[in-house]
């Protein structure tokens, strides 16, 4: 059966029509909001007065953001969380991946699945689960700590000095499995004869790890660390839900992403929020570039 001529697609246009669903979605939900926030970063706007209420203020929002001590405080919180939750992810994931790679044969997929599970679980479910685990009076963590060590129960999510470690723990727990999978994939590409040759030369397992495995993993470390840097700097959902959307006592868990969300939707300052989101983008770009400098394979060295 042939379609009527009017409905058939000429080969000239077919590629464009076929790719259009992606492009339309990308323009509407990707590029559109991005450009809108760029425009907004240079305006002052009372949103409930409609779009025509925007007023151009030049770099005013950026100047305000850079002078805003809470913006810097939120960047500090974000940096702390990114380092404390990010670095251990890799320090644990690499040896763990090697261990799984060398020690498990039949159970391998099951073990990987168990580590990967937190990554594919809904953040909201995780955060709600952990907020009841961390509960001061009724939480399992305090019950367990009390049974083991005694002493007063810890106010995990109420006391400012405990909020960040609690969040970092969850972020670590959630993403370590993802990194394990990355490193496992990289481990499978290292040729076995390298290890055989090293064994012949009398190198032990520790020496093999430091002189063969680690250098071979470098490209994947670069990739993994880059993802951790970007993800860590954009951290939002876990602290947002754990602290009831406020950022916790003394804003100790208020990341930059939470602050700029609150700036727009709680404090009604969409212009400054957009400016901050672009400043955050600059920070992310800068740190990604630095990661690149630190880990990327350099020409001539290989």
């Amino acid at each position: 059966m042939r379609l009527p001529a009017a409905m058939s697609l000429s080969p000239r246009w077919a590629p464009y029509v076929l790719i259009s669903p992606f492009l339309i979605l990308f323009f509407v939900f990707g590029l559109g909001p991005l450009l809108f926030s760029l425009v907004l970063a240079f305006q002052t706007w009372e949103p409930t007065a409609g779009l025509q209420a925007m007023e151009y203020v030049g770099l005013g929002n950026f100047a305000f953001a850079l002078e805003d001590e809470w913006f810097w405080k939120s960047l500090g919180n974000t940096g702390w969380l990114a380092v404390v939750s990010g670095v251990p992810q890799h320090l644990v994931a690499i040896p763990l991946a090697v261990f799984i790679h060398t020690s498990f044969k039949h159970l391998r997929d099951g073990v990987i699945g168990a580590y990967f599970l937190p990554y594919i679980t809904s953040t909201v479910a995780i955060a709600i689960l952990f907020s009841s685990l961390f509960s001061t009076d009724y939480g399992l963590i305090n019950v367990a700590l009390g049974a083991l060590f005694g002493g007063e129960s810890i106010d995990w999510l109420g006391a400012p000095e405990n909020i960040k470690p609690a969040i970092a723990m969850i972020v670590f727990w959630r993403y370590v499995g993802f990194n394990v999978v990355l490193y496992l994939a990289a481990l499978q590409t290292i040729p076995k004869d390298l290890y055989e040759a090293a064994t012949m030369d009398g190198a032990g397992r520790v020496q093999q790890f430091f002189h063969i495995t680690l250098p071979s993993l470098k490209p994947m470390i670069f990739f993994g660390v880059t993802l951790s840097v970007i993800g860590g700097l954009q951290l939002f959902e876990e602290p947002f839900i754990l602290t009831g959307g406020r950022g916790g006592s003394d804003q100790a868990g208020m990341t930059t992403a939470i602050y700029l969300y609150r700036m727009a939707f709680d404090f009604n300052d969409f212009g400054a929020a957009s400016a901050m989101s672009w400043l955050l983008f600059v920070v992310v770009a800068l740190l990604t570039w630095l990661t690149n400098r630190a880990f990327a394979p350099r020409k001539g060295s290989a």
Partner: protein
Amino acid sequence: MTTRRAGLGFALSVAALGPAVLAAGPVQARQVLTVAAFPAIDEIVRAAVPHWKKLHPDVDIKVVSRQFVDHHTAMTTALSTTVYLPDVMALEVGYVGRFAQGGGLEDLSREPFGIARLRSRFVPYAYDQATARNGAVVAAPADIGPGTLLYRADVVARAGVGEAELTRSWDSYVAAGVKIKAVTGAYLMPHARDMKDIVIRTGIQPGEGQYFDSQSRVLVTSPRFVRAFELARDVRRHKLDAKVAAWSNEWSEGFKRGTLATQFSGAWLAGHLSNWLAPDTAGRWRAAQLPDGAFAAYGGTFLAIPRSSSAATKALAWQFIQLLTLQREQQLAAFKSQDAFPALVETFDDPFFEQPLPFLGGQPARLLWRDAARRIAAVDVHKQDSFASEVIDTELDKVLDRGKNIAVALADALRLLEKRARR
């Protein structure tokens, strides 16, 4: 078939083509009035539909219901783009002041609405809450939340504390809390922040808001803030607060187990406690006026009309709002079914107010709340209020958790707010 046509009418009207098409079209299709609301209010609106259909058989009511926060975010977005605007929107009091700044809501004091003529029929403070600084009345009060002190009579009695001790003054209230904690182990309140929140709302001079006066001068170093911070610090020092936030699991657990002895709140909390928070504690709670002769509002719902609607839609929307807010039967029905305390003064003589409340041990507490409703004064709103409240909360955190000096904390808050006040 009718429903499908109504659905089509809605689809058109939300595409911002509808009102014009419907008004100009030769075929008078069934008209649809869209009402956006959040839980409890959506039920009240639905319950009013049969009555509305008697008055306007050809106008359907479509209720768009969302969760509380989602609803207000959706309304903010709808107003900012003037797309997908409902014909009538329910707003919680905190958002009324915020939306009034933007001018996206119709001024109901203008003709043909003329809400000013109806002013005396509304609870005075609720009407004032809907009045912007420029005199525009941007919404009609649908229900109010007169503040009250709910307390566990059995816990308090075990500590040998009477109601008078709880309410005589703030100092006496805290002293009672010390006794309660010592004898029963129960906390006086969920969080020391609650203490600060109520005290900064008392003793506000006319023309002042909570944080700013009418000239945007920052008020956070005034005596009421110092007093509020001192009292909150006392509460924390004596370990009288459970350090839990309202609506958290620990909070409701505290009510169930009787480890929270008192709570400042709107009268509506008694309904929530009895329905789902702690139904097993029925009969053990009592209500009192707030300590130290304080009167404050906790929440309240308003109904507003977007300015960009067509004149014909606005007229219908206003009739629907009047049905919900000015009809004695509707207001009382909402009170009976959803604990929505009436904002319509003429309902106040209904015998329902005198009925004993079994959850409160047979106390006729609605009389108490009715008295409070008449004595609450509205507080001026400032566009930076929500930011100011975050600044004050954070400085209080530093005082409570990090031992910061109160005078320094308030001076820091002042500095932060002065930067924003005129932004």
